[in-house]
C-alpha cells in the first residue's frame, strides 16, 4: 500500500480534531487566570499584607497613615453622606415607590454584586447607573454621576454591604467577556500627555509617593468606593474618581458611565473578587 494512502486519512483526522477542539490561543481571555495573577502580583509585592487589607488603599501601605486613618475613623468624614444617603434611600418617590423596589433584597447588602453584566442589554450595569435607571423608571430626574446625591446614595448602599466579599460574575456570554477585555485594555492603556495608564500608578506605584499622595493599589480599589477625599472636601463617586484620574494624566475624560468606564469598573471589580467591601472609604 502506498505511504500516501496511509498518511492522508491520518492527516484528515488530525485536521478534523483541530477544528473540533481548536487549541486555546495564547492570548485568549481568561478572567480566572488574570485574577489569580493579579492577586499573586500584589501578594508578592507586599508580602506582609493580608489580601483583605488591600481594600484600605494607601492606609495599608504606610504605618503612619494607617494610625491617622484609624483615629479618623472614630468620627469618619463620610458620616454626613451616609446619613443623607440613608434618608434619601428611604424617602418615597412622587409615585410612592422607593429605591428598594428597584433592587434585589430591597437594595440592602447588594453592593458587592455591582457592576454586573446585563445579558438583555448586552452591557455592564454599575450601581450608579442602576440607581439612575431606578429614578428614571419612577419618573424622577436623573442625578449627576459626579455630585453629592449619587455619592451619598452609593455610600449608604456600600455601607450595608461592608465586609461582604466582592462577587462579580462574568456570564457565559461572549459580550460579557468582550466587556471584561475592553475594561482590561482601558486599564493598561497609556493616555494623556503624561503618558500614564491606570496601571502606571496603581500597579507599578502603590505605596510610593506621587507628589504628596501615596498611591493606592489597584487590588481592592473598587471595594472602598465611594470615597470621602480630603482633597475634594467631600464625597466622590466612582465616576468622579475615574474622571479625576484621567484629568490628572492630562487626558480629556470620557462621559461618566460611558461604556469604557463601565467596562473598566467591571474588570477592576472582578480582579478584587473575594475581597471585602470597605466603602464608603476616606482618603487624603
Amino acid at each position, binding site marked *: 500500500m502506498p505511504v500516501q494512502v496511509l498518511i492522508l486519512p491520518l492527516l484528515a483526522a488530525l485536521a478534523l480534531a483541530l477544528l473540533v477542539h481548536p487549541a486555546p490561543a495564547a*492570548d485568549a481571555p481568561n478572567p480566572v487566570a*488574570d485574577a489569580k495573577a493579579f492577586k499573586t502580583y500584589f501578594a508578592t509585592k507586599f508580602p506582609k499584607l493580608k489580601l483583605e487589607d488591600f481594600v484600605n488603599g494607601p492606609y495599608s501601605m504606610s504605618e503612619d497613615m494607617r494610625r491617622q486613618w484609624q483615629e479618623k475613623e472614630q468620627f469618619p468624614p463620610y458620616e454626613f453622606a451616609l446619613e443623607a444617603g440613608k434618608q434619601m434611600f428611604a424617602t418615597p418617590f412622587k409615585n410612592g415607590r422607593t429605591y428598594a423596589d428597584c433592587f434585589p433584597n430591597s437594595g440592602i447588602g447588594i453592593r458587592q454584586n455591582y457592576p454586573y453584566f446585563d445579558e438583555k442589554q448586552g452591557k455592564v450595569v454599575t450601581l450608579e447607573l442602576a440607581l439612575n435607571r431606578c429614578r428614571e423608571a419612577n419618573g424622577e430626574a436623573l442625578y449627576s454621576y459626579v455630585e453629592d446625591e449619587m455619592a451619598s446614595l452609593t455610600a449608604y448602599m456600600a455601607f450595608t454591604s461592608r465586609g461582604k466579599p466582592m462577587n462579580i460574575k462574568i456570564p457565559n456570554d461572549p459580550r460579557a467577556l468582550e466587556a471584561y477585555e475592553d475594561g482590561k*485594555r482601558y486599564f*493598561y492603556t*497609556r*493616555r494623556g*500627555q503624561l*503618558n500614564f495608564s491606570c496601571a502606571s500608578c496603581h500597579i507599578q506605584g502603590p505605596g510610593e509617593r506621587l507628589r504628596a499622595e501615596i498611591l493606592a493599589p489597584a487590588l481592592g480599589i473598587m471595594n472602598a468606593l465611594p470615597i470621602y477625599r480630603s482633597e475634594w472636601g467631600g464625597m466622590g463617586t466612582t465616576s468622579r474618581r475615574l474622571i479625576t484620574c484621567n484629568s490628572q494624566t492630562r487626558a480629556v475624560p470620557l462621559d461618566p458611565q460611558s461604556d469604557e468606564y463601565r467596562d473598566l469598573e467591571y474588570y477592576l471589580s472582578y480582579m478584587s473578587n473575594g475581597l471585602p467591601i470597605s466603602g464608603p472609604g476616606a482618603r487624603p
Partner: protein
Amino acid sequence: MSMIGNAAFAALLLTSAATQALAASEADFKAAYEAAKTADNRAAALHNRWTTTEVALTAAKTAAAAGDFDAAIAAAKDAEALAKASIFQATREKERWKDAEIR
C-alpha cells in the same frame, strides 16, 4: 511729484503692505487652526484627546480674537503637535498595552 505727494504715496504703499501682511497672517492662522482641529478630531475619534490640546486651541482662538496672529498661529501649531502626539500614542497603545499586563 512734490515732496508732499511722495510722502503720501509712500504712506499709501506702506499701509497697503501692512494690510496685506495682516490679511496673510489671518489666513495663515485659519489654516493652522484648521490643521490643529482636524488632528484633534482624529484624536477624539480614537477617544484620546489631551487636555493640553484643548488649552492650546483655546489660546489660539483668544489670540486671534485679539488680533495677535503670530501668537495665534504659534498656539495653533502647538495644538496640532499635541493632537498628533495623542494620535501616535493611541495608535501605538493599541497593541503595546499588553506589554504591561500582569500575567
